[in-house]
């Protein structure tokens, strides 16, 4: 896993645009063209992009060698903040819903983060799971506020003060999702090579040496944790606005598991892998659910085992080795 994550940063450093950059550009352009060439896929891809941004949050933590089984917590908090905002302030602006949702996720990320950054490995993963289960049962139990298992509706927010029709709004949110994907993906890549990001990734290799340098691993991990919570918040908010309803299912452990799965599928620690993984996952899921709806988790689990045991680099790892092989042949 380590090799791949380092590859992706070093490839950015080369002067000539690499095959990877060109492919990324082509991929983004292809996504931009989706409403024109495949309008039926638009909603599906929008959900995949929202999920991809959340998966990016999990990916960030994987770079520090940590896995969280409860990041759907921030996904859900952001979605619920948005839903409550629109309920109390009908016709709120889309950007306001997004901003408040992300703010909510960041505050939650700070509170939970202050506690969980004291731990690594097993405790880190399981405590995150516990926090998400706590929030999930709050959502289910206090149904007079949260609507219980039925959730609450998130009526369509306005865009720059304009009431929009369904089709128009979906188009706006689709391009907003693409813009956020590119922007946040770029930001995360830059963050990884920034001093904080570099220190953050050394938590995976050797934390004690970090302390000898006079740096606090907890503070560094907390900043990465906040970033990951914020990214999950963006994803949750986009998902909630696209679907128009938020349910406790947003926070359910299955959702967290799905995020971890996609992150590992795409290539643990790879920014592009998070989005490619999410797109592949959503598209396969739509077509597979007709045949394998009952055994979906079973397939996911089985596939996760296969990736971990036989292709630890995920999709990006396989793609990298293909590109690399071509390069050596020339």
């Amino acid at each position, binding site marked *: 896993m380590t090799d791949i994550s380092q590859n992706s940063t070093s490839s950015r450093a080369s002067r000539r645009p690499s095959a990877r950059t060109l492919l990324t550009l082509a991929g983004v352009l292809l996504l931009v063209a989706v409403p024109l060439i495949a309008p039926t896929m638009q909603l599906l891809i929008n959900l995949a992009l929202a999920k991809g941004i959340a998966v990016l949050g999990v990916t960030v933590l994987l770079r520090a060698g940590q896995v969280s089984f409860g990041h759907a917590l921030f996904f859900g908090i952001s979605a619920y903040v948005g839903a409550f905002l629109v309920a109390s302030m009908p016709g709120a602006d889309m950007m306001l819903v997004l901003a408040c949702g992300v703010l909510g996720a960041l505050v939650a990320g700070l509170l939970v983060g202050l506690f969980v950054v004291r731990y690594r490995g097993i405790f880190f993963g399981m405590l995150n799971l516990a926090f998400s289960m706590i929030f999930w049962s709050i959502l289910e139990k206090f149904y007079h506020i949260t609507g219980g298992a039925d959730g609450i509706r998130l009526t369509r927010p306005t865009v720059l003060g304009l009431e929009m029709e369904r089709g128009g709004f979906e188009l706006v949110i689709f391009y907003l999702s693409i813009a956020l994907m590119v922007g946040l993906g770029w930001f995360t890549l830059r963050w990884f090579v920034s001093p904080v990001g570099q220190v953050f990734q050394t938590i995976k290799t050797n934390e004690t040496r970090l302390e000898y340098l006079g740096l606090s691993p907890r503070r560094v991990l907390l900043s990465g944790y906040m970033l990951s919570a914020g990214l999950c918040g963006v994803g949750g908010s986009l998902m909630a606005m696209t679907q128009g309803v938020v349910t406790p299912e947003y926070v359910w452990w299955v959702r967290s598991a799905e995020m971890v799965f996609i992150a590992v599928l795409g290539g643990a620690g790879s920014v592009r892998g998070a989005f490619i993984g999410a797109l592949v996952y959503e598209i396969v899921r739509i077509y597979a659910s007709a045949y394998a709806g009952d055994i979906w*988790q079973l397939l996911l689990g089985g596939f996760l085992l296969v990736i971990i045991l036989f292709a630890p680099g995920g999709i990006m790892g396989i793609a990298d080795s293909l590109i690399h092989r071509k390069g050596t042949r020339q």
Partner: protein
Amino acid sequence: MNLTIFLLALFDGISYAALVFIVALGLTLIFGVMRILNIAHGSLYAIGAYATVSLTGFFLALGFAPVFAFPLMLVSAVLVGVLLGGPIEWLLLRRIYDKPEVLQLLVTFAVFMILEDVQRLVWGTQPYFQASALQALGNVTVFGVTYTVYQLILLPMVAIGLLLGLRFFLRHTVIGKLILATTEDREAAQSIGIDAERVFLFTFTVGAVLAGLGGALASPTTSILPGMGADMIVLSFAVVATAGLGQIGGAAVAALMIGLGRSFAVYVWPEVAVLVPYLIMVLVLLVRPEGLFGSPVARKI
């Protein structure tokens, strides 16, 4: 809060703690010896419960007496351990002992996802209820409070028996000492001829049997639903983390704290009852990051 309610909460707490402890015991044993947190432990618990309900239903329909439910619980637990626990260790975990902790966690998580669906495929999504074991033992009245013998006497006795039995087994039998030696230092143990692979296989199977037994014993007291495995893994992790990972005696104390905290909350403030175990865990971990009975580990540099 009058005496009756106090006693009811106390009894609820004790019987609940006994069940959680049995499951947590398996989890902490596996972790203590193999340094792996088995997330699939929750599924093994649920499958133990489902298997008991199915077997009991089958044999009662053949005309067996309700008392026959008790040996069937043991049978289900052993089946879970041998048919699921053994192969999981043998086929999967054995490949990943030298991998990073995060990967080990992901592997057991993947097994958990698979087993959750397997339950749904085999037993469907409708709830099961099979309380013949509970009814077979009747009720007992203590200070004017009537409670089932099964929950008030049998469950705590099984829990205490397992705790003492496991302590005795680890400290005073040859196999137990082999396990302790492997836990202490795997390489040194292997160099004096201990087959560490067999020790791990045995430990994991015993842990899985305990998970199955917890489910089997829980089955008469609750309805068996999909999702009970997910709840139980988080709850038993809360117990194990509160006690300190790998602390067998500590797990009993933590289970009692969490069980009693939860049952009193049910009578005082029912909405937050499900949160109490986690609140206790978070409070304990804030003060003692290694758990109540855990000791800080020396770090390798």
